[in-house]
Structure formats: C-alpha cells, structure tokens
C-alpha cells in the first residue's frame, strides 16, 4: 500500500519508547485505570478501600521512580500519540512537577487510609474512592503536563472530582459551601481558559517549552503583560490568594474531614505550582515587573489569613485560614523570584502539603474523641489522650515554623531571601505571620486539649479508638520531622526545582532535543 511508504519522520517520533519513559504517564494513567474499575464495582463497597489504596501505592511507586529519574537525568518528556512536539501534547516532568506529584500522592494515600474509618458504606456508594482516584489523576496530570491547555484540562478533571467529594453526604451546609466553591472556581477556570486562548492567539503554540523559548522574541510585539496579569489572577484564585480567597473559608469546613484534609493539603498547591510554572518559567520579565504587586498580595494573604484564623472558634474554619496564610508565605518567594526565594517557596509547598493534611486529620481525630469541632465545647483531651496531645504539638510547631518540625527551614530561606532582596518589610510580614500562627494554633491547643473540659470534672476514661487517625498522623509526622531535623535532601530537591524554573534550557532541551544539540 502506498501509505506505508510515506516518510513520517518529519511529523512523528521514530525512535522506540523506552520502558522507563512510561513512569511519566503512570502517575496519571494508573489512577484513571483504578478509578474506572472502582466505578464499575461501585456497589461492592467492601472492595473499594483495598483497590484504591493498592492503586495509590502503585502510583506512589511510579512517582518515586519518576522523581529519581528526573533528579538523575534531568527533565523527562513523552509526547502523546507519537507526534513531534509542539503538535503532540507533551508530558514533561522536571524536578518541581515530579516532587510535588510525589508529595501529593503520598498524602492522598494516607487520606485513603484514614477514609477507611471516616467514610462509611453510604459515602463509598456515593463514590468517595472513585472520585479520590480521578482527583489524583487530575492533580498528577496538572503537575506533569508540559502543555498549557492540557493543564487546563487536568484542572477541570480534579475540579469536577472535587465537586463530587465536597457534596458527599448532601447536607444543606455542604451544598451551600459547594455552590460557592463551584461558582468561584468556575470563574477562575474561565479566566484561565480566556488567558490560554489569548496566549494561543499570540504565540500560536500551547507547548510550555515552546512558549518559553519564543517569549523573548514576542516581548516587543505581544501583549505578554496582559497575559501574565490574567494568569496571575486566574491561578491566584485557585491558590486562594488575597483578595480572591473568599471561596476557601466558605467551603472548606463543610465536607467530610478527610476530603478537607486532601483539599487543604493539595489543591491550593496546584494553584501555586501553576503560578510558579507560568510566571517564573514562561514570563520571567513580566513577573519581575509585577513583583511589587505580588509581594503585597503575598503579605496581605499571609497576615490577613492568619488573623482570620485567630477570630474563629471552629477548628475546621481555623485550619482553612491557616491554609490561606501558608499560600501567602509561598507567594513571597514568587514575588522575590530569586533562587533562594523560590527554593523556600517549593520547600514550603512540600511542608504545607504534609502539615496541613495532618492538621485536618488531627481535627478529625479531635472530633472523634472530643465530640465537637468547637473550641467552646472541647477541652480536657490531654488527660485522656496524651498521644493525641503529642501529635497536636508537633503539627502546631510545624505550621508555626518552629523547630524541630518542617516549617522552620522554608521560612528561614524566605526571610533570608527577602532581606537579600532589600525587602525587610516582607521578611517582617513572614515573621509576624509565624508569631500569629503560633498564637492561633496555641489558642486551639490550649482550649481544645489542655484546659479541663468546661462544666465537667476531668475524666481519665478513654472512650474512643483512634487507631486509623493515629496511624495516618504518624505516617505524615515521619516526613514532617525528617524535614525539620535533616532537611538537606529536601532542600536539594527544592533547589533543583528552583534552578530548573529559573533556567528553562534543560526543560526546553528535553522537549526539543534536536534544536538543543545545534
């Protein structure tokens, strides 16, 4: 047949794909496979947890292999359907994407474990585990894709799954929270899509490596500043940056606690990741122009966020505001744009994914043992459950940025970076946020755990059996404490990620090997 004699090497890859390259697709492909199987066996609720945990552990293994491969050999690329980039959709994993995907899958596995206790048969029949798998497919895809429209698609995938997880239980409060979450997120997504359409009109390409190498030539003629501002607004909404953060406190206290743990830990970081990728790697000059604005946004987010936490009495609402304040700290590194600043931001992202998830799980354990989320009603838990008091103390120190836990090093890096950049007020804001976080969480610790239960004699009789809660928190406390006392490996990964963002030549060279060789 004539068709078989056509030379395809101008349009398609001809080299065979190595087996190791599949590690790039596995973090997305595996959750989709397992999610599909879980949908098919929706009514066999006993099987769900086992299938989901097996799937997440396999995904975690693939993520770990990918991360090691990226750290050893630099960015990895696979272009879908054999088309040559920029025509095919490239999956491109660099140290930033691969490490965040690994951390996110780690906390998702822990959440799946805790959900064995938290989500009953009804919740499973409504599809908790399929939604969880598809959410992780979306999150993994967002971290690993090298195509900006494809990034939009993965945002949609995890957004739609998150709607399903938010309303699991269908109480009025959940529907109320989910409506606000859905509408505000759809506004953000629409902005993202508009900006992407505009970008395609300007550049004629959606491949991020292609955009990065063409940006210099377009700077004189293209409306790159407009694009950057649009993306800043769209991803700022996703990341819950001040002043577009009001959707988060309105919705994160309503879902099941394990859902809140996953959202508080992972979803805002996807927004921060997208900000880093687009603003630092694609439009660095425009980011530098906007750095003053971003710094004010960062300071506003961190200080006003934590003030919100001090004003609340429901533990879940407190944690929602702590999540926002953490986003502000991460934006500080984005505003600075220096290597130390970005390393601090990325390290803070690792810390925040782990610590916020663990704190929400702690809230779940407190509710289980103390019977309430309200600081007015709780008390006396320290006497009955000293182990929980210990977990709470470690997590509180982590989030407040005190040793020996994980929050210390990223904050030191960010403070040093902002002093180096000549912005002492930004480092003051970071330190003030640390102090206010200590006050907000210390207040929670004293009221919920330390003081005697109001109106009751102290009792020593333990009634709850928080085995799953303790196990999940212990699993998360291991990396949290490790990051606190032996941060070198984490810092090395974060440094590799930051330098990969600042100098995109390795990323571009991985996608377009022929031109890099010239």
């Amino acid at each position, binding site marked *: 047949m004539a068709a078989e004699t056509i030379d395809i090497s101008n349009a398609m890859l001809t080299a065979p*794909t190595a*087996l190791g390259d599949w590690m790039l697709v596995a973090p997305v*492909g595996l959750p*989709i496979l397992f999610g*599909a199987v879980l949908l098919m066996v*929706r009514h066999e609720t006993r099987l769900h947890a086992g299938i989901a945990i097996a799937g997440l552990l396999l995904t975690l293994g693939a993520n770990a292999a990918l991360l090691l491969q990226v750290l050893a050999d630099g960015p990895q690329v696979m272009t879908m*359907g054999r088309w040559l980039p920029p025509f095919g959709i490239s999956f491109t994993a660099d140290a930033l994407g691969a490490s965040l995907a690994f951390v996110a899958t780690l906390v998702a596995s822990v959440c799946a474990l805790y959900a064995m206790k938290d989500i009953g048969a009804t919740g499973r029949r409504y599809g908790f585990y399929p939604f969880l798998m598809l959410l992780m497919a979306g999150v993994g895809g967002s971290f690993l894709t090298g195509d900006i429209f494809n990034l939009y698609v993965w945002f949609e995938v995890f957004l739609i799954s998150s709607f399903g997880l938010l309303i699991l239980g269908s109480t009025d409060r959940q529907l109320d929270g989910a409506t606000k979450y859905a509408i505000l997120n759809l506004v953000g997504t629409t902005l993202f899509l508009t900006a992407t359409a505009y970008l395609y009109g300007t550049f004629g390409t959606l491949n991020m490596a292609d955009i990065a190498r063409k940006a210099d030539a377009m700077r004189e003629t293209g409306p790159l500043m407009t694009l950057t501002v649009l993306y800043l607004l769209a991803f700022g909404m996703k990341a819950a940056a001040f002043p577009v953060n009001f959707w988060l406190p309105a919705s994160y206290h309503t879902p099941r606690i394990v859902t809140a743990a996953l959202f508080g830990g992972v979803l805002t970081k996807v927004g921060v990741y997208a900000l880093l990728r687009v603003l630092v790697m694609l439009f660095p000059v425009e980011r530098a122009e906007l750095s003053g604005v971003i710094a004010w946004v960062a300071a506003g987010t961190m200080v006003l966020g934590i003030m919100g936490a001090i004003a609340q009495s429901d533990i879940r609402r407190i944690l929602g505001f702590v999540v926002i304040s953490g986003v502000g700290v991460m934006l500080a590194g984005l505003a600075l744009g220096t290597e130390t600043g970005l390393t601090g931001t990325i390290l803070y992202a690792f810390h925040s994914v782990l610590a916020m998830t663990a704190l929400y799980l702690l809230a779940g354990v407190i509710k289980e043992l103390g019977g309430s989320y309200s600081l007015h009603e709780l008390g006396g838990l320290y006497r009955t459950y000293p182990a929980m008091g210990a977990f709470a103390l470690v997590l509180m120190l982590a989030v407040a940025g005190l040793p020996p836990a994980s929050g210390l090093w990223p904050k030191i890096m960010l403070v040093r970076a902002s002093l180096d950049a000549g912005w002492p007020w930004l480092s003051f804001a970071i330190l003030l946020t640390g102090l206010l976080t200590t006050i907000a969480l210390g207040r929670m610790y004293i009221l919920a755990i330390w003081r005697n239960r109001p109106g009751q004699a102290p009792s020593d009789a333990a009634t709850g059996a928080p085995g799953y809660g303790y196990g999940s928190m212990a699993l998360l406390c291991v990396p949290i404490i490790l990051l606190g006392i032996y941060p070198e490996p984490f810092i090395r990964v974060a440094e590799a990620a930051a330098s990969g963002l600042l100098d995109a030549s390795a990323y571009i060279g991985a996608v377009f090997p022929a031109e890099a060789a010239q």
Partner: protein
Amino acid sequence: MRTLIFRTVAPYLTSLMILFSIFVLLRGHNEPGGGFIGGLIAASAFAIYGIACGVSPVRRALYFHPMAISGFGLLVSAISGWLSLAFNVPFMTGLWTKVSVLGVPVDLSTVLFFDIGVYLVVLGSITSVALALEEREHG
C-alpha cells in the same frame, strides 16, 4: 407523557436511535460523528424509553447500572492508551491492524476502541442523570 401512541412508538424509536448512534460512532473516524455525539444520541434514546414506559424497564433493559457502563467505558479508553506500551511507542499512539471477518477486511485500531470508550462514558453518565431525574419526577 404515557399516552398510548407514545408508548407504542417508543421501543421502535429507541432501537432506531441506538442503531443510528452506533452508525454515528463508527463513521466518526473520517466524517462528522464520533463517540461523544453517538453517546448523546444513545442516552437520549434511553431517556425517551424512560419517559414513555417508566424508569424500571430501562434499568432492566440496560442490565448494568449506567455508572458501571460509564466506568467500563473509561477503562476501555484508558487501556487503548496503555496498549502502546506493548509496541514501544508513546502513550495514546494510534495502532492499526486488519482482520478479515467472513472475507471482508475490517480495519481495527486503538483509536476506535478509545472512541467506543468515550461512547460508553457519555452514554452511561448522561443516562444515569436522565434516569435519576425521571425517577424523581414520577416517584
């Protein structure tokens, strides 16, 4: 809506629409059509059957729960992407083969199976929504 005329016509209409949806699915590779629109046509066929004769006959006729059909579709699509693994080509590469059915050569491809997966996902999820809404209306 359960008039005699509608109830008499509905089964024929439904079977015609499902045949047509499969035709649209298969012609989709080179001409307008494909899994998504085919799935929508099939889902509206089941919706019409449900309006005319009630929801439980539709559920009986489908045998599997619509969401399970949807999950199976997702699985078919995902596997058609993973098949590339066995041929040393990147994810989602279109792989073609020819089989002879009763002397007629038929082109089979992973693209076709991906599209069949899309068809089942759309059919399953839209039918699931439609049946749930119809149940609420009559229940």
